[in-house]
């Protein structure tokens, strides 16, 4: 039995007066790949931002590696091994691919380790090796997505959160990104994956949560969810 890495209890987040996330519970075990699906505006991005420390929850507990994350600000969470690949990628457009990757390793100071990981990223994404001196802002959408993922991995996170990594990508590129997700999951990293392409997400994930209007309405093993009629109707367009 693997131990729990992240545990969220009664998480509530509001924008001004509007509650976007209304008291949700979720947990992720070490090495687990968990999918979070839900329709537009359900509160998925909001949840991830709160976990990364970019938003302050109104209420609720977040336990990470048996430590409470209340009062831990975003950059400290990054240092604790929590990484987020944000919606819209958020690459540093006027920095080169290499500089972007080095930013990913900002919290580390083991020069040799960074060099090793850099080589590993270039192995994982050969395209980035070709383009390492290109400004990230001039890359195509798919390439930027690779930069964003590689950058997050450079910090050697224990928990990787991905917010719609397939958005705006061509079919071939989607396949490629999901292959990478599967690969890094196999290396034992914990992953929380938010996706609109619910089918793909549930195919790679072990467990899944379904979110609607700020609440978790369904959860369970990924295969179960894939088979559920409710999920099929709402998210798979069946």
């Amino acid at each position, binding site marked *: 039995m693997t131990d729990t890495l992240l545990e969220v209890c009664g998480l509530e987040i*509001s924008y001004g007066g509007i509650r976007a996330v209304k008291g949700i519970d979720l947990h992720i075990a070490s090495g687990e790949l968990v999918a979070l699906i839900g329709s537009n505006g359900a509160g998925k991005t909001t949840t991830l931002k709160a976990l990364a420390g*970019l*938003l302050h929850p109104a209420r609720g507990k977040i336990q990470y590696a048996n430590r409470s994350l209340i009062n831990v600000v975003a950059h400290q969470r990054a240092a604790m091994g929590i990484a987020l690949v944000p919606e819209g990628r958020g690459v540093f457009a006027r920095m080169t691919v290499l500089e972007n990757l080095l930013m990913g390793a900002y919290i580390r100071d083991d020069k040799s380790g960074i060099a090793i990981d850099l080589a590993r990223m270039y192995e994982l994404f050969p395209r980035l090796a070709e383009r390492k001196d290109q400004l990230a802002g001039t890359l195509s959408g798919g390439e930027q997505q690779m930069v964003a993922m590689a950058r997050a991995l450079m910090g050697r996170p224990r928990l990787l959160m991905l917010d719609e990594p397939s958005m705006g990508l061509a079919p071939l590129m989607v396949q490629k990104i999901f292959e990478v997700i599967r690969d890094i999951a196999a290396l034992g990293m914990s992953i929380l994956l938010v996706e609109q392409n619910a089918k793909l997400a549930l195919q790679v994930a072990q467990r899944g949560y379904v979110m609607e209007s700020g609440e978790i309405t369904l959860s369970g093993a990924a295969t179960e969810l894939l088979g559920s009629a409710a999920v099929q109707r709402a998210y798979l367009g069946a």
Partner: protein
Amino acid sequence: MKFNSKSKALVAALVVALLLLPFITDALFGRGWVRIVDFAMLYIMLALGLNIVVGYAGLLDLGYIAFFAVGAYCYALAGSPHLALAFPMMFPDGVHLSFLIVLPLAALLAGGFGVLLGAPTLRLRGDYLAIVTLGFGEIIRIFLNNLNSPVNLTNGPQGISRIDPVSVANVRLSATQNVLGIEFPSVHLYFYLFLAFTALVIFASRRLERSRIGRAWMAIREDEIAASAMGINTRNLKLLAFAMGAMFGGASGALFAGFQGFVSPESFSLMESIMVLCMVVLGGMGNISGVILGGVLLAILPEVLRHIVVPLQQSLFGKTLIDPESLRMLLFGTALIVMMLYRPAGLLPSRVRRRELDSDEVPESIGRNQA
């Protein structure tokens, strides 16, 4: 505009209060304060004009005072003996056109300058626009300062004095007038004149804001590319914004010249542009009542401080410890900071700004959300 009976009563009360304002001010604080109120009205007009450019169309203009200057000099030249110096044959006594002719002339001339300034700056954004408009304001000032030779057009830094006071329908506003047994001193008369014009400017601003033109300006402010893709001719509309703002500025400049009787380039320094911008932003960009409040506050605050700094120190320390004049400006600067910190979207934010802020209050650590 439709009013229910309650708001009708409110408006009526407001009108009466405004009409009585100079008398009340005079009785309570003295005539000097009526003059301050008069200047505040001029500033409100200026700020409302700038609000069109900055608040509606989102074009940061740091040289706005130039239009005020153009209007003022237009009035000064058309209503003083000065041109007799430059063109003794043509105008042996100078030019003394009627106020009702000069005012629209000044507004139009300033509007023309607005277009002139707007044209080369159309492609510029944000702070680049700011510095170019700043430069434009300085250029105008330098020309006014130096056009005393080869032909003495502006009398240079010495300025033009002996400008005709405003007179409407043979009533000279520079002298105390007796109407129905009530004495109206000059500063009171100017107050009513400025009040009328301010009302006009407010009316025009409101109508423009809620019109097809106003919406197009806001679209440009929000996203120029999307606006042009929606069929908005951004070039023409930006020029229009510059021109409209400049016209208001020019008209108030003309009023200023008539009121003051003297114009010189010193009155149109960069600091003045900055103050008007402060009024707009501090009051609440894009919101007419906010801009008015900003104008009133910033025009009057230094004067209020002038009066309280010494007594305040006396009551605190028993004597004047700190030089009152620098303390006054120090407090003024501090007030700017504190007000802005306390209400970042302005004292009376526009509907849009207010909501924009609401959503930004919570996520403290969220980064700059660039489009």
